[in-house]
């Protein structure tokens, strides 16, 4: 009945899907705000991708997988709405914990002050703004991939992201925090 053999399906899955598991998990974490829920969501996404891979044309696997992940999440929210509505208050300590762990004794005071202020400004962004910043800056997604993951137009991603960063900047300026221009660029 199925023209695609199990072996072809498995090869395609290995080629297109396995390299994206880390990104999917990161995006899942941004969406669910909970490691166990992110794991469930990504597992569901992998199963759906495996079943659908014979209909995938091989182009833009990440975008394809992010769309599957978004649909899987929509189903989960419909099924378990109360638990899955992310509570921003609950996510704040997590962000704060990971950030404060990162400071080493050698970190210059000004840089640490900047990092703390950025962390605070990030947390204070509304959920809609924070999630696009997370997708692009933390998860490394392109604007289009972010649009696929969130199910919104690319223009919306751009305007939310740019506004979010401007808000954060203004917040830092209002606190009189200088930007440390010695911050090394990402490799």
């Amino acid at each position: 009945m199925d023209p695609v053999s199990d072996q072809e399906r498995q090869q395609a899955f290995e080629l297109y899907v396995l390299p994206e598991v880390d990104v999917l998990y990161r995006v899942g974490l941004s969406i669910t705000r909970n490691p166990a829920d992110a794991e469930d969501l990504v597992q569901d996404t992998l199963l759906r991708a495996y079943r659908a891979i014979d209909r995938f044309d091989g182009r833009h696997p990440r975008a394809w997988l992010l769309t599957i992940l978004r649909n899987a999440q929509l189903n989960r929210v419909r099924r378990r709405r109360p638990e899955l509505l992310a509570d921003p208050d609950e996510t704040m300590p997590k962000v704060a914990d990971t950030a404060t762990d990162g400071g080493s004794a050698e970190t210059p005071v000004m840089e640490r002050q900047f990092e703390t202020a950025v962390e605070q400004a990030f947390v204070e962004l509304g959920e809609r703004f924070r999630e696009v910043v997370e997708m692009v800056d933390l998860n490394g997604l392109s604007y289009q991939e972010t649009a696929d993951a969130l199910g919104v137009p690319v223009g919306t991603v751009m305007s939310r992201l740019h506004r979010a960063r401007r808000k954060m900047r203004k917040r830092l300026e209002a606190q009189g925090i200088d930007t440390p221009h010695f911050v090394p660029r990402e490799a």
Partner: protein
Amino acid sequence: MIRRRRRLSCRQVGRSLQEFLDGEIDDDQRITRLREHLEACRDCGLEAETYRSLQAAIRRQVPPITSPELDRLRDFGARLAAGEIDADQ
């Protein structure tokens, strides 16, 4: 014949700056013009540096990518790829 390119204004650079820093512009000529402006204009250069610092600070908040959940997912994916899991169950 050499065609003189019009320099971008600060306002034009400001409108494209975040897209440029995010690697979202794929027009090579535009990238070159933006780069030239950022090198020559102190204000726009500082603006770009501020956004880079902001982005870098946000990136440093990333939780460690190693986690038991992720390890299990990698294993689950590998087992699916190896045909060890019935995806239709």
